[in-house]
């Protein structure tokens, strides 16, 4: 990296001595530049962020870069998190945004061959294996924004209110977009009647 100047954090907490050793406290310490607290956040949320980014990016390498970039942003801006209970939603949203940016820079979606896809599933049910192959095909046909919505809802498990708070818009608008997206996926994935 060409720059090693650390950002200045401006935590919005004042009672340091009385803060509990909870998630809130971890976020607040991380916001003040506590590297141990920040490492705890990484341990807890890195996997969720990677899974969300993977749905959007489609390959491990781009996912790794996107999540790494997301953690750098998280370090710099964690002080802007007003509600520590929303730290997970905020982190996965940051990862999703970095993944979208990475996809746009890459300008193409990684295309994995079927053999690789089968290898991912291993010894699972053959029906699931086919489903993953279909899912990969369908995901390639979605836009980055649509994959982001899908990942935040069904991989990160955020509800429409949380998604709206993180990416903008209203919860009802998010629900409408999700409903239209599900209709498309249902048609695309149900070509053989297996998904109903």
């Amino acid at each position, binding site marked *: 990296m060409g720059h090693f100047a650390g950002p200045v954090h401006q935590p919005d907490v004042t009672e340091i001595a009385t803060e509990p050793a909870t998630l809130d406290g971890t976020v607040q310490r991380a916001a003040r530049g506590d*590297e141990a607290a920040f490492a705890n956040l990484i*341990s807890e949320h890195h996997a969720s962020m990677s899974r969300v*980014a993977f749905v959007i990016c489609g390959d491990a390498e781009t996912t790794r870069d996107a999540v790494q970039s997301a953690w750098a942003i998280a370090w*710099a801006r964690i002080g802007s998190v007003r509600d520590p209970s929303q730290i997970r939603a905020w982190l996965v949203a940051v990862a999703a945004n970095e993944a979208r940016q990475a996809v746009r820079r890459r300008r193409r979606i990684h295309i994995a061959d079927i053999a690789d896809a089968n290898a*991912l599933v291993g010894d699972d049910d053959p029906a699931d294996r086919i489903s993953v192959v279909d*899912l990969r095909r369908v995901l390639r046909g979605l836009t980055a924004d649509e994959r982001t919505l899908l990942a935040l809802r069904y991989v990160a498990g955020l509800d429409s209110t949380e998604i709206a708070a993180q990416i903008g818009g209203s919860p009802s608008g998010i629900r409408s977009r999700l409903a239209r997206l*599900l209709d498309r*996926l249902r048609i695309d994935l149900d070509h053989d009647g297996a998904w109903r």
Partner: protein
Amino acid sequence: MSDRPTFETQLRLALSTYVADAPVGVDPVAMTTFASRAHVPSTSWRFRRGSLLPILVGLLVVAVVGAAVALVASRLDQRTPPRTYIDEVVSAPDLSQEMTRPVLVALADGRVLVIGAGSDGDGRPTTALVYDPMTGSSASAGPFASPADPEEISAAVRLMDGRVFVTGNGAPQIFDPRTLQFTAVGPMVAERTDPALALLHDGRVLIASGLDSNREWLLSAELFDPATHTFSATGSMATVGPAYPWEAIATLPDGRRRALPCVTFGGFRHGASVSRCRPLSSCDSGHDRP
């Protein structure tokens, strides 16, 4: 009732299988070290102190340079005719109206003052217009300062200051190309119709001969001073002839005449057809007489 999972449940399960290949492994300490050292550009752009001054200076420089270029371009455009014609006659758009027996004067900016009567000339008032040979556009000029019938405005010459001296049957007047208006001057020393005009090198105009009230050719001549708008008598000619004295008088070229296109008319009484040429001789004024 079927216990088959809903589509959303199937989708969630498929996605969980799909993301099994996501790179979830991480060294929290190493990632923290990276994140804390990484440079993250600010998402908000705002003026820094002093950043406005270079922008304003740059805009000022651009404005000054642009104005200078526009000024030079306009000067060059004025000095250089749009096209140079050498021994060449090309077609040009018609005048906005027909002109019979016109008097032509090339103006300093390349336009042409055209004074004449309408088609056939009989009973048609004398009119004037300014014709641009380059664009083919015509603009009405006048009215004349003195009442004039089609036969009265018979001679004109461009003065050194760009104005035009026109005269006919004792009704001398000055045309200003900037306002397209005529202003009366005079009176003349002698009333004369169809005199011959010549611009002298000192800026005055020699007005010679012409017909008197008895339709006899005059031997006398007079001078017009554009600076004072006054006329004064000068020496008389020894003889007059042949019948059209304007063909026998001209100002010798002084070598400084600009190469402006002039307008010639294709034929008598049908002056709407116009051609352009750049003769090497004078093109300040001309007559299309039978």
